[in-house]
């Protein structure tokens, strides 16, 4: 047997070091484990401070003893390489392990063991742990806000239908793939709006928007028979004409009668709330802010000075102010700018405000992508005789947008995380509902449970979004 030097372990006495090191390490972990799970203090015979630091010292010596390079034992090498490269790393690793062991029992007992799951009143929550009965009782409100209970199937149905329609892109065959952009940019938002307006809100069947849709459908159908030479002029003039005819000539007399036909009970936007409102607001803002941001970014890079400076001013203004002041503006200042008889719904105002705000950020992200493209792409497109729009639609934007997927995803994430701010105008989505529930005299003192619940919900949504964007980025990655 070779001489043992405990200060510098080497390969010669591998097993002597290994056994002593592992036993010391397990002893230290055992001490902490027993102390934290069963409140047994094995080292109580020692004076206070030493007893407190003993596991750390023992574990540190143990890790030092098993730090043998190229030992030939696979497991040992993995440990040494990952958590035990030097004394400092060993100490940090031990601290993290001990912290996890120490924090597990209180967390477990709060979340599960001592928590109350059953019951529907405050009295049911007598344990020291979390009161999940609170979440259970208020779950409906956290999801739907003040929306009448009997009508909540309308929200569910709309969301399921919209999720299904949104997933159409996955099943599209090659033949229909080229129409997907048109579908997602124009058709899908219109369908979504109709669902929200007729189903969730319960709006009357004939209103301005309905005439527009009928006019669009009629003109598209007739449009198939128009020679392509005149198509552009046709689509510029006919839809507007049909709209005016429908609204002021054909249906003018019946307008009042038809306007009253409602399929569902009207639920005003003030009653909407909870997580469903979070989804509605972020969905529409997401749809609106992208095209606006796209045009702003093109405007900012335009050669035309007036358009360029208006775009710059617009972008820098929205980027320079906090969202909360924008919402203040939309709630207290904006009504002053409208004619007295004109009223815009609170929710619509909020959606417009957030969309414009986020559009400025989207614009800057897209501008980054446009700038990253080499000049050659522009020159090549121009040399093929493409005009401004053709060049951008077919050459520049497909490449630029691919580059900025992560940036756009980040902006959308920020948008979802900003929706709770709409409490400023009195709309209560999930965080707002939590604050309302917290002040209910029947349920005082359960703030923690509510915030933990909402945090988990938001974490799941945002984490899923960021992972999805990462997948998209990998999918569309092109080497240049």
């Amino acid at each position: 047997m070779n001489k043992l030097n405990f200060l510098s372990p080497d390969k010669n006495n591998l097993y002597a070091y290994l056994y002593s090191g592992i036993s010391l390490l397990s002893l230290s972990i055992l001490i902490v484990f027993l102390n934290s799970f069963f409140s047994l203090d094995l080292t109580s015979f020692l004076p206070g401070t030493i007893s407190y630091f003993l596991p750390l010292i023992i574990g540190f010596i143990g890790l030092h003893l098993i730090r043998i390079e190229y030992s030939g034992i696979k497991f040992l090498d993995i440990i040494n390489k990952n958590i035990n490269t030097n004394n400092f790393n060993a100490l940090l690793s031990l601290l993290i392990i001990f912290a996890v062991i120490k924090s597990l029992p209180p967390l477990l007992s709060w979340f599960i063991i001592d928590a109350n799951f059953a019951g529907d009143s405050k009295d049911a929550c007598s344990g020291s742990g979390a009161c999940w009965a609170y979440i259970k009782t208020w779950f409906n409100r956290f999801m739907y806000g003040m929306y009448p209970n009997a009508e909540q199937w309308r929200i569910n149905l709309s969301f399921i239908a919209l999720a299904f329609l949104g997933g159409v892109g996955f099943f599209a065959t090659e033949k229909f793939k080229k129409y997907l952009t048109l579908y997602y940019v124009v058709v899908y938002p219109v369908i979504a709006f109709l669902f929200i307006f007729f189903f969730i809100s319960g709006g009357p069947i004939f209103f301005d928007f309905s005439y527009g849709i009928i006019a669009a459908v009629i003109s598209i159908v007739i449009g198939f028979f128009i020679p392509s030479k005149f198509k552009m002029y046709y689509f510029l003039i006919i839809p507007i004409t049909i709209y005016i005819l429908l609204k002021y000539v054909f249906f003018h007399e019946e307008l009042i009668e038809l306007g009253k036909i409602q399929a569902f009970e009207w639920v005003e936007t003030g009653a909407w709330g909870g997580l469903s409102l979070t989804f509605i607001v972020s969905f529409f803002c997401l749809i609106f802010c992208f095209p606006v941001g796209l045009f702003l970014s093109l405007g900012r890079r335009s050669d035309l000075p007036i358009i360029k400076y208006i775009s710059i001013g617009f972008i820098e203004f929205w980027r320079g102010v906090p969202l909360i002041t924008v919402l203040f503006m939309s709630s207290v200042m904006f009504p002053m700018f409208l004619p007295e008889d004109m009223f815009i719904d609170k929710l619509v105002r909020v959606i417009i405000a957030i969309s414009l705000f986020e559009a400025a950020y989207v614009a800057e992200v897209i501008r980054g992508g446009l700038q990253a493209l080499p000049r050659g792409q522009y020159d090549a497109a121009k040399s093929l005789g493409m005009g401004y729009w053709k060049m951008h639609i077919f050459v520049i934007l497909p490449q630029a947008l691919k580059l900025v997927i992560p940036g756009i995803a980040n902006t959308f994430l920020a948008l979802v995380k900003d929706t709770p701010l709409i409490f400023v105008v009195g709309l209560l989505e999930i965080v707002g509902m939590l604050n309302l529930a917290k002040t209910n005299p029947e349920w005082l003192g359960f703030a923690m449970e509510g915030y933990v619940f909402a945090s988990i919900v938001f974490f799941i949504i945002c984490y899923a979004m960021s992972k999805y964007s990462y997948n998209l980025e990998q999918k569309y990655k092109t080497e240049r």
Partner: protein
Amino acid sequence: MNFKKILPQLLTLVVVILVFGFFSYNAQVNMENRGITFGYGFLSQESSFDVQFSLIEYDGSHSYFRAYLVGLLNTILVSVIGIIFATIIGVVVGIARLSSNYLIERTAAIYVEFFRNIPLLLQIFFWYFAALRALPLPEKAEPMFGVFFLTIKGFFIPAFIWNNLDIFIYSVIAAIIAIFFVRAYAKKKQENQGTQTPVLLISIGLLIILPLLSFLLGGVDASIEIPVIEQLSKTSFTFKGGLKLPPELISLALALSLYTATFIAECVRAGVQGVSKGQKEAAASIGLTPNQVLKLVVMPQALRIIIPPTTNQYLNLTKNSSLAAAIAYPDLVLVFAGTALMQTGRAIEIVSITMLTYLTLSITISIFMNWYNKKIAIKEK
């Protein structure tokens, strides 16, 4: 100039002018109907409302302009605290994410993913309504190190009582100016003679010696006042003396720095990873020590990548501090766009001043950043 270029510009201009004209016409009509005249004269009127927490002397007899200043200073205070802590946490976590230690890297990654994906407002509410409400009452608070008291009514810390504070501040400023001269001298010396001067040691020495001299010779005197518990009534206690940090400020600063630190950590990580391996190897191969490699080769290049997005995060933090309104921390939005607006009803003036303040702040910083970026950009020939 051809027709195709002028038409779209004219159209845009006309639309913009029409929209603005429509808005301002309506605003005029509405204000006439309500009997309000547009103007900023109200700023000098007596405000007659109180603010919970203020850095400058303020009560209801002061003007609205003073209330505006109180709000602005509170916003700046929480932003500065947040920026300092966010930078410290962000740099530590960013470096931890680059660690070869699996446990450290994972812990840092979990922290970043967790705090980044939860809305800031929710975090502020969590700290204010849930976490800080679990703190003990003043009479039951255990002192930390004998002098700090963390209670449900706020964080009480000892305060310094200064004599001749201005001389002390002048001495610190003098030390900083002296350091600049030393650095310029050291740089010149190195360029001319190639010898290095221990700038860091001299700087630390100057920073200690000059303020110390002000104590010994300048008549500066500081004593420490420790907060002492005081009974207000039978059940109500508070601390007297010392400095009180209200729970609103603590929870806001905590949430802001923990949230922003995740973004700064990612900036730091990207910056250090952005320095190519060849640079480090090349530096090592010409005989620089690891410390010199870090100081002279890696950091200058990494900082070039780190600083612009980090400044952006500082700006975001400052703008996010406006969420203070949600937990009644008296910042610019709450004091001015909240209380003052309610009292005067001057929506257009007050919201425009508030927005203009934030706008000035961010445009100043972005102009500075553009200048800085140009200055540090690698000059290619």
